[in-house]
């Protein structure tokens, strides 16, 4: 299979499929073959569903040939983080605890993708229960980053990042409670969007922390990401956190450029409160200059210190996660991996008063943050503070994991996108993060598209692939 087909994105594949130049069956077969060849090295998949995929591809092919085209995902392969339900398929959460847990119905996001004609390729690796990793003591190995050989791919949506970066699939879903869509996007040089809290349904997605959980699209380009969010977004009365707001066409502003937009540079997150790797600092400062050169009004702004948001996020996440896992932790503590057990036990002794105070702090931080966003359209800052470390260097992975600036926007619920911002001299990905006002994903995509068009970083492929 040529690299052109392996790295064909949603927009291009869809155009070729609609015009009859590419068969969904041909594309699906090619990606199954590629995954069978590459996945023993990268471990992106926990479980492939090739029979389901080929059946869906044949169905799409017949529908499109009959003149019934459902939209950009029709006949296009996608894969799901294995905490998202597909009826009849196990949702393991990458854990021994749920190794035999067969889903009885589709998650809302699964149903939406299938109704749009998407072709499910399988279930992707995650950190155990989207919290504890990377781990080598689980029923499946951790996913490996195709950038740099054997490096950490970020997490917890690790398989999603790896499958995209290695050309195994053009679309994947991740979840983001403390940064888990944007971390693998940053480490694997892809595009990951955490939409506004409530924008995308979480029904049928195994929870980590109810008030911080988001489902988000992961793709290789900005346009593909907006196309995927078009399918996912919308009110779901079966998700108590779902927002009853209209979903616009998220591609509407992609070509508008940034002239006149006010972009706030949150520099103290990566060169003040904490200090990022020098290449990472330079990459974001360069991005600010580039956007200024494209006509944006780029100005430095100050939010609350990064550690304040992290403190708030950690206490809430620990508490809510433990409430979900308490019964298993009492009965089956030995069935968790070491990292997963540690992270979940972290919530066992948080006091109710501390949890409430963290929620009160959250209200304060959110109000202060949104006040700053009254003066800007989009914020630019770091996502990860470091390039990916070697996966087998456990201490380095654990050191790098919390060195991030994504949690603030789980706390506030704002839309936040991570994307590639260049590469180190060793060829490891660097990243940046763009944040918008609540429900203003289209404006975030607008800035991301302008930056992507000016840099071409999303066109780079891992060496040898």
């Amino acid at each position, binding site marked *: 299979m040529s690299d052109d087909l392996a790295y064909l994105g949603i927009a291009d594949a869809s155009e070729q499929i609609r015009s009859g130049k590419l068969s969904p069956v041909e594309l699906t077969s090619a990606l199954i073959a590629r995954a069978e060849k590459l996945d023993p090295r990268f471990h992106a998949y926990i479980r492939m569903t090739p029979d389901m995929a080929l059946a869906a591809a044949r169905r799409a092919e017949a529908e499109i040939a009959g003149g019934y085209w459902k939209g950009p995902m029709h006949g296009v392969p996608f894969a799901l983080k294995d905490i998202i339900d597909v009826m009849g398929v196990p949702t393991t959460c990458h854990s021994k605890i749920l190794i035999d847990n067969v889903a009885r119905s589709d998650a809302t996001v699964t149903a939406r993708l299938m109704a749009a004609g998407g072709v499910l390729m399988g279930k992707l690796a995650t950190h155990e229960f989207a919290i504890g990793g990377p781990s080598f003591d689980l029923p499946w190995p951790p996913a490996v980053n195709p950038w740099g050989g054997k490096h950490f791919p970020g997490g917890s949506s690790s398989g999603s990042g790896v499958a995209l970066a290695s050309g195994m699939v053009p679309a994947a879903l991740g979840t983001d409670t403390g940064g888990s869509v944007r971390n693998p996007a940053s480490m694997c040089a892809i595009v990951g969007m955490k939409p506004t809290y409530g924008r995308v349904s979480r029904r049928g997605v195994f929870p980590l922390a109810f008030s911080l959980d988001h489902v988000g699209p992961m793709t290789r380009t900005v346009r593909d990401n907006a196309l995927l969010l078009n399918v996912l977004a919308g009110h779901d009365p079966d998700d108590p956190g779902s927002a009853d707001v209209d979903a616009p066409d998220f591609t509407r502003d992609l070509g508008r450029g940034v002239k006149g937009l006010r972009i706030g540079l949150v520099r103290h997150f990566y060169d003040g409160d904490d200090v990022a790797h020098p290449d990472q600092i330079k990459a974001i400062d360069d991005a600010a200059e580039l956007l200024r050169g494209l006509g944006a009004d780029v100005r430095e702004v100050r939010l609350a210190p990064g550690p304040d948001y992290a403190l708030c996020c950690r206490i809430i996440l620990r508490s809510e996660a433990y409430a979900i896992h308490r019964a298993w932790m009492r009965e089956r503590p030995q069935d968790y991996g070491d990292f997963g057990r540690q992270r979940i036990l972290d919530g066992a*002794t948080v006091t109710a008063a501390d949890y409430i105070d963290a*929620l009160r702090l959250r209200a304060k931080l959110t109000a202060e943050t949104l006040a700053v966003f009254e003066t800007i359209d989009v914020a630019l800052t770091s996502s990860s503070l470091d390039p990916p470390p070697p996966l087998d260097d456990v201490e380095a992975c654990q050191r790098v994991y919390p060195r991030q600036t994504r949690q603030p926007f789980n706390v506030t619920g704002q839309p936040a996108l991570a994307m590639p911002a260049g590469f180190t001299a060793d060829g490891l990905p660097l990243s940046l993060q763009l944040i918008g006002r609540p429900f203003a994903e289209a404006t975030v995509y607008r800035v991301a598209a302008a930056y992507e068009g000016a840099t071409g970083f999303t066109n780079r492929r891992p060496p040898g692939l």
Partner: protein
Amino acid sequence: MTRDDVRRIARMHGLTKLSDHHLDQLAASIRSNEQLAARLPRDMDAAREMALTFKLKPGREGAR
């Protein structure tokens, strides 16, 4: 904090099946939570309420 102290705390929380290694992990969690709690602001206004995400749906009683 001794191993017995940690075991007692574990029992209080219904965690009676933790191994010695698991108890070491719980001890680390307890220390970590103490450090986090110490950093929470103590000067928040008493009227500062927690963030609530629940909203009434249009058409239900009391909704606006």
